[in-house]
């Protein structure tokens, strides 16, 4: 339907919107307390997705106008399915949370850059809160590359942890704010409490870190990494900033770039090596 007449254009595609053949919800479940998982059938998107990429999801919520960015939790090219995991924060996620089997969704994507998952070293995945949403697909892709994976997952309570079964093949360690399950404290503390090399060591024999979570958690991770001498270039993270378009036209998703100026989370990210960010200027757009 939409034909790009000019050259040099990238090609994420809009889909759905009720014209048939678009993405359709095939499953809805509650993977952990407070969260909803929607499984969407859309073979082209499932095939195109790199772990860490996101979609701009149209929501018909009262008074809302912008799409909402959601990372794919996982995708499966064979079955044509993509999973999204989210909790209800405001109008958009509330609307999304009552989608059911058979409802069509209007997705734009996959968008942005996913994680760079190539390499040999062990990988530690650090997931804070809903940041865990991106990891089922990431872990699967890492394991498929033969890499050793440790998942560190933090949540406020045990019930808000995504079950370890979702990371089959990886080692899973947890941290909870109330201490009822795993480490008592933050997931970054958990990382710091691990034996080397897991908690970081310079140079060969080190690990790659892949992190996703609230900005304060990412900042804490950076502090820890600096103290533990984990090079920031060994850490990749998925950023969350407000987004207008998701495709580089609104310039609304700026994140401070190391060395000055701004990166666009939607185009340069959301998955970025931590040394590309100026962490001193990095702010949290969302309240705690």
């Amino acid at each position, binding site marked *: 339907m939409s034909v790009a007449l000019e050259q040099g254009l990238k090609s994420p595609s809009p889909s759905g919107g009720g014209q048939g053949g678009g993405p359709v919800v095939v499953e809805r479940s509650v993977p952990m307390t407070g969260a909803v998982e929607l499984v969407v059938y859309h073979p082209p998107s499932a095939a195109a997705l790199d772990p860490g990429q996101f979609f701009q999801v149209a929501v018909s919520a009262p008074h809302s106008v912008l799409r909402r960015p959601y990372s794919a939790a996982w995708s499966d090219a064979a079955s044509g399915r993509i999973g999204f995991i989210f909790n209800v924060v405001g109008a958009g996620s509330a609307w999304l949370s009552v989608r059911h089997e058979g409802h069509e969704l209007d997705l734009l994507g996959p968008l942005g850059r996913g994680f760079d998952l190539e390499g040999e070293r062990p990988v530690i995945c650090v997931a804070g809160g809903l940041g865990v949403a991106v990891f089922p697909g990431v872990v699967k892709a890492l394991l498929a590359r033969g890499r050793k994976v440790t998942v560190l997952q933090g949540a406020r309570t045990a019930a808000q942890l995504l079950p370890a079964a979702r990371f089959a093949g990886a080692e899973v360690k947890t941290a909870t704010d109330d201490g009822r399950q795993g480490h008592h404290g933050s997931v970054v503390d958990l990382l710091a409490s691990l034996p080397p090399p897991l908690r970081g060591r310079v140079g060969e024999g080190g690990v790659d870190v892949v992190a996703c979570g609230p900005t304060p958690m990412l900042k804490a991770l950076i502090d820890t990494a600096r103290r533990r001498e984990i090079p920031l270039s060994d850490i990749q993270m998925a950023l969350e900033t407000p987004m207008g*378009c998701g495709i580089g036209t609104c310039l609304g998703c700026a994140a401070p770039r190391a060395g000055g100026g701004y990166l666009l989370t939607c185009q340069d990210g959301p998955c970025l090596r931590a040394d590309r960010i100026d962490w001193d200027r990095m702010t949290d757009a969302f309240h705690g």
Partner: protein
Amino acid sequence: MAERPDLTVDLGRGLRLRSPVMAASGTFGYGFDAPQVDRAALGAIVSKGTTLRPREGNAPVRIAETPSGMLNAIGLQNPGVEHVAHVYAPEWMTWDLPVIVNVAGDSVEEYVAVARRLDGVAGIAGLELNISCPNVQRGLQFGVDPRLAAEVTHAVRVTTQLPLVVKLTPNVTDIVAVARAVEDAGADAVSAINTYAGMAIDVQRRRPVLSRGSGGLSGPAIKPLALHAVWQLAAQVRIPVIGIGGIMTPGDALEFLLAGAAAVQLGTVNYVRPQAAREVHDGIAGYLREHGLTDLRALPIRSVSVLTHA
């Protein structure tokens, strides 16, 4: 009527569009992103606001959603006119779609310098003077004062042969006075409107949501306000009025065309519904056919006979 209605628009000084649907400044970058938008439906693209030197833009947070709208305070992040003239314009030259460069500045001299650099550059179809961006310090000054607005318009007018659109701010008591001033100063068309000054406060953190405090409101929320401005302008200026503000659907665009706009620009909707340009284009064509009209000039519902401009 099986005939295909004539959707062309003449904005003056040789700037002819194949479609009355334009992409608004700041919502389409420099035309290289948003491949989902069907360019065949567009009459022109207006570039991001461009200044003499590159600008980094404002610190985040730059955008916030509000009821049926969004606030932005991007702060004119752009690569500067040199990059536009040198890198982008040669690309645009190969397109069959006119690109109008939105020009911003802090002083008459800066506007003139940008216009001078772009004059005669192949691939540039026209200029849109952004005298209304509310985000940069002193950004409001030209647009709210008819005298200053005329001054900058005139200064650019004598600098360039390019078709010149002046984009009006709605944050004024009398938008018609500003429009008439820039018309007299040589503008070929006016576009109305830019965003409305607004703000949002983060109640939990007890501070403005946007790092700059305030920003510009766009989106469906402002449609009735923008339409009112265009309705007044179309009756009281002679040059074409380009309608902008909250257009999401063909019906919205038709409201502006019925109010007297010669063309429309789609802004925020480009972020949300990439298919909007195509839908609006086709919806306008369908409406003309249904109503037995052959071209857009038949649309305005009020003749310009109330024109009291001397």
